Every structure is written in structure tokens, then in C-alpha cells.
């Protein structure tokens, strides 16, 4: 079966890349003195007092290959060490704390980006060189030229500072009170305040979280749909120039039927793959937006860690990103093979 073989082949190819990532990270790690590296192995803050013991315990002054396997062992047991500064919290815990913020932005942005991208891209292609096309093209080029932090700042100056419509971070002060677990009125389900708000029956919390999501989502959607629009547009134009379109018209189908039944199906194949990569990239690429809006997601967390050279966090984030990258590529490749019969059936 073509598809199964294809999937297996892709999975196998995934392994050297992940291996390469791990090896590269480890190689870079070796350039850091053992004392700093110790933080990668410690989860209990108390252990920090006696770094020398840690070094001996994990063999940080041992030959490279011993260290490599010791480290791998660590990772596979879910121990990613702790942050060197700021409370010495275990890396994995901090990560899980902050992940929902990022995920929440992605969940609301991704569908909007895909929707607008495909819709406007199709409109643009179908009305080539006419007014809708020009407007869409100008707007989408603007979207790719506008720096996300600049757009974010403009929105903040207007909506946060001037109009005082919302605030930075995920919730307002009242919202934070509503979402306080210690008060007993709120149960944390997913960490996504919009969903948790609904699940708790707490509509004000839901609305508050939504309001705070509006601006970051707007920035993201505006800038990322630009790319989607351009990809969809060129893909549609490519599909519309094919012979089977002429053949379909010769069958007596109306222009609309030809566009939506014949061209679009073909055009959407590369678009689907791009959107898959886009969503995957968003999980790790929200750093600037999160920082500007002080959203407390993993991107902002990693950025702060990078500035402070907090090794364990940076390493963890690098591994996480690489994993997401590899997985999203795999999913996209599989999707592609599934949608396109030419690949599915070899």
C-alpha cells in the first residue's frame, strides 16, 4: 500500500534529524563549564547548594560519551533540569505552566488565518488584475512588511493606553481574581482561560480572557494571513492555467463550478501543507507577540531565558521546537500524500 510505505519511510527519515538535533545540542552544551551545566540535572532547589556533589553524581567531568548517555537518560525520564535563576524551578513545570497561554493564542488565530487566507486568496486569483485582486495584494504585502512588534505597539497605544479597552497579559485584575484557584471558586481544566471560563460556568472570566486575546490574535492573523493569501493566490492561478480547466469548461460547466469544483481542489493541496507548517511554526514563533503583550507564554519565557543565558530553559526550548518542527513536517507530509492521489497511489 503506497500510503503506509510512505508514512513508514517518513518516520524513519525523522530519526536522523532528531538524533542530529540532540547531538548538536549536546555538543553545544559541552562548551559550557560543568558548574553551569549542573542546573540541567537538578530538579530540587536544595541541590544547588552543593554543586560539586551534583557534578560527581552525574559524571559531569567524565568523558564525553559517558555524559551523553547520562544526559539522554535524564531526558528520557522527563528530567530537564531546573532554571538556573529565578527560583530554581524545574524546567518542565515552568513549561507546563506557560504552555496554555501560547496554545490559547494559536487555537484562535490558526482557524482565522486559514479561513481568511483561503477565502481572500481565491477571490484574488479569480478576479485577477481587477479591483479585489489589487486591494488584497496590497493588504497582504503590507502584512508581510509590517513588523509584528510595531503593529502590536500601535494597537497597544490605542486600545490599551488611550481607550483603556483592555490590558496587557491574559486577564485583567478582576479576571485574575476570578481565575484564582486558591479561592476555591475556580477549577483549572485546561489552562486556557476562555475554555476554563466556560467550563466553570464563569461567563465574565470567559469574556475577559477573550478580550485580552483580541489584540494578539489580531496582530497574528493580519500578518500571517498575508502569507496564506499569497500562497493560495499563486496556487489557484497555477491550477486555473491548466488544461483540465479548459476541458471542464468544454464540458459545459459554468465558470463558478469550474473554479470551485475543479481548480480549488487542486490548488488547496499545497495550501494545506503550508497551513500545517504555519500552525506548527506558530507554537514556537510567538515570542515577539507574547513579549509585546506580556502574555506569559512559552515564547516569552524562552526569550527571557535566552537573555539571562539560562541554559536549561534554552536547551529545553530548543528541543521542544525541534520536536514540533519534525512532527509538523511529518503530519504535513502525510496529509499531502493523503490528499493528492498521485502520491497516495504512487
Amino acid at each position: 500500500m503506497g500510503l503506509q510505505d510512505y508514512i513508514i519511510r517518513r518516520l524513519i527519515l525523522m530519526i536522523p534529524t532528531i538524533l542530529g538535533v540532540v547531538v548538536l545540542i549536546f555538543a553545544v552544551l559541552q562548551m559550557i563549564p560543568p558548574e553551569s551545566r549542573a542546573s540541567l540535572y537538578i530538579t530540587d532547589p536544595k541541590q544547588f547548594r552543593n554543586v560539586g556533589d551534583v557534578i560527581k553524581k552525574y559524571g559531569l567531568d567524565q568523558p564525553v560519551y559517558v555524559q551523553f548517555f547520562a544526559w539522554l537518560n535524564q531526558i528520557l525520564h522527563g528530567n530537564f533540569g531546573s532554571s538556573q535563576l529565578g527560583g530554581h524551578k524545574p524546567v518542565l513545570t515552568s513549561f507546563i505552566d506557560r504552555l496554555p497561554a501560547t496554545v490559547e493564542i494559536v487555537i484562535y488565530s490558526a482557524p482565522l488565518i486559514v479561513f481568511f487566507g483561503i477565502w481572500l486568496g481565491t477571490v484574488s486569483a479569480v478576479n485577477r488584475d481587477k479591483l479585489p485582486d489589487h486591494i488584497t495584494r496590497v493588504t497582504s504585502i503590507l502584512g508581510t512588511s509590517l513588523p509584528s512588534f510595531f503593529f502590536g505597539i500601535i494597537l497597544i497605544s490605542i486600545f490599551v493606553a488611550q481607550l483603556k479597552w483592555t490590558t496587557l497579559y491574559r486577564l485583567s485584575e478582576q479576571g485574575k481574581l476570578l481565575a484564582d484557584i486558591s479561592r476555591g471558586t475556580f477549577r483549572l481544566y485546561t489552562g486556557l482561560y476562555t475554555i476554563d471560563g466556560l467550563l466553570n460556568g464563569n461567563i465574565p472570566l470567559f469574556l475577559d480572557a477573550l478580550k485580552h486575546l483580541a489584540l494578539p490574535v489580531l496582530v497574528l492573523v493580519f500578518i500571517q494571513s498575508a502569507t496564506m493569501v499569497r500562497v493560495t493566490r499563486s496556487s489557484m492561478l497555477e491550477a486555473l492555467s491548466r488544461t483540465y480547466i479548459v476541458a471542464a469548461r468544454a464540458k459545459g460547466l459554468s465558470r463558478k463550478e469550474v473554479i470551485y469544483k475543479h481548480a480549488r481542489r487542486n490548488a488547496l493541496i499545497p495550501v494545506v501543507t503550508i497551513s500545517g507548517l504555519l500552525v506548527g511554526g506558530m507554537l514556537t514563533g510567538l515570542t515577539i507577540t507574547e513579549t509585546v503583550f506580556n502574555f506569559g507564554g512559552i515564547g516569552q519565557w524562552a526569550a527571557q531565558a535566552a537573555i539571562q543565558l539560562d541554559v536549561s530553559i534554552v536547551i529545553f526550548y530548543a528541543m521542544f521546537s525541534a520536536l514540533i518542527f519534525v512532527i509538523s513536517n511529518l503530519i504535513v507530509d502525510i496529509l499531502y500524500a493523503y490528499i493528492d492521489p498521485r502520491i497516495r497511489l504512487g
Partner: protein
Amino acid sequence: MSTKQRFSEFKKRMQPTIKEIKFTMKKILESPLSLAGVALVSFFIAISLLAPILAPPRDWKGYPLRDPFEIPRDPDEPYTTMPAPPTSKYPFGTTTGNLSIYYGCIWGTIYAFRLGLIVIAAVLTIGILLGLIAGFYGGIIGELIMRFTDIILAFPGLILTMALIVALNRAGWSNIDAAMLSIILVGWPGYTRLIRGEVLKVKTEDYIEAARASGASDLRIMVKHTLPNAIYPIVIVASLDIGSIVLFAAALSFLGLGAPPNYADWGQLINQAGDWVSYGLQYWWTFLLPGLFITLFCLGWNLLGDALRDILDPLYRRK
């Protein structure tokens, strides 16, 4: 052969290329969007060239500045952190510490160009070298190179760039140089993949076979035959990328990892403007003007790259 003869021979050989370039330029000038792109890019080139006239690199006493990229502060004015609105003395207003935004924006243009061009040149060189080798020879070397690019592409660019800048900083590098190096290290895989792809496409063409049959060496085939034909998509991507590189560097500066605080760097200016955003639009000139510069710069290159893509594609097909 005398030099004169050699030169006329050269001119004759370049004729078809010259014709192509002339044709491309004509097409660029025909569409309003591409015209806008050319206009914007030319505008910024003009600013860079005229910078010493538009914003003389002298301190307020008239003495030339040690480093023209350091925004001069007028010592006669009392130091204040509050930004001042645009006046005749400060056409774009000032930001924290009496720094002229006008000066920053003008010299920031040169800074942006310098950064963009150096990075693009480096990334292209590496990319072409590795891409040619990987595409041309294939085999184990090619696979290794491609796996390596895959691995680098898997990493989070921004975070790693940031970490690298901080690390290099501690090792004594200036932020600016560290930023350039980091961006190059993160950016070369993309171009390597692109060029390799183009080389693969060109490799199967007949004229490569012909060149080989006539005994041309590998190097000769690569440089004289493969490269000129693989060049079009590269030109397009490169021109689109200059904008992205400057944008990326501006983001780094915005996060505090770019140029130092009184430097003429657009991203840095917006970083400093961050303090004033909480006042709403009251101090609009601190962030809107530098931001406008970045956006227009990027817009110009994007429009140009887009136009080139549209023009070079049907040309490609017409061949």
C-alpha cells in the same frame, strides 16, 4: 589582443544579458506596484547616500562625531527622559535622553542597508557554495549537507539567535557584530536548500550534458552553466529577504539585543519608545516614525521582490 579589443569582445558577449536586464527593467516600470517598490527602495538608497547632508554627523558644537551612528546629544540642553515633539530643531522629535529621532531614522537607513547587505552576501555565499556542492555532486556529501540544514532549520531561530548574541557578548563581541553573525548562522540553511533545488532542476537540462561532453571541468560547468540559470529564483528570494533580515534585526533590537541605547537603529528607537506607549498616542513620534521607516523599507523590498517574481516567471516560460 589589446585591451580595447578585449573590452569590445566582452561587450558583445554580454549583449543578450544586457538585453534581458533592459527588458526586465522596462517591465518593472510598467506595473504600479513594482514601480512603488522601486520608488521606495530608491528613496532609501538616496537617504543612505545623502545622509551626511541630511543629518550631518556632527555633535551640536560642530565637531565631527567619532561614530556617526551614535545619535549626538546636545549638552546645552538639560537632560530629560521625556520625549519632545517635532520641532524645527528636531524634525521628528526626540526620544528618551534628548536623542533626535530624525537623526536616528536617517542613519538607521545606512545601518539597515549595511546589515542587510552583509548578511545577504554572507548567506548567499555559503548557500551557493554548499548548495552547488550538494546539488551537483549529490551522494553522501549532498545527503550530509541536507541533513545538516534540516537540523539547523528545526531550531527556533529567534531564541537561538538571542542566546548566541548574549553568549558572544560575554565573550567580548559587540551586540551589532554578534547580531549579524547570529542571523547569518541561522539563515544559511534556507538558501542552501533553495540553491540545491535549483541546481537539481538545472542539472537534468541538456546543455549540462553538452558541456560535459565537450570536456568542461566540473568547476567550469558549475560556475558558467549551472549558476546563471539557477540565479533567477535566488535573486527573487534575496530581494524579499533583505526586508525580512532587517525586520528580524529590528526585532532583536526591540528586545534589547541589538544596538546600544543611543544608537541609530530603528529597532532600538522603538525599544526606547516602549516606555512611552503607556501614554497612548501622546508620544506618537517615538514609535510611529521609526516603525514607519522599517515598514516602508520592508515594503519596498517586498514589492520589488514580488514584481521580480511576476516578471521573471513568464520570461522563464517564454524561453
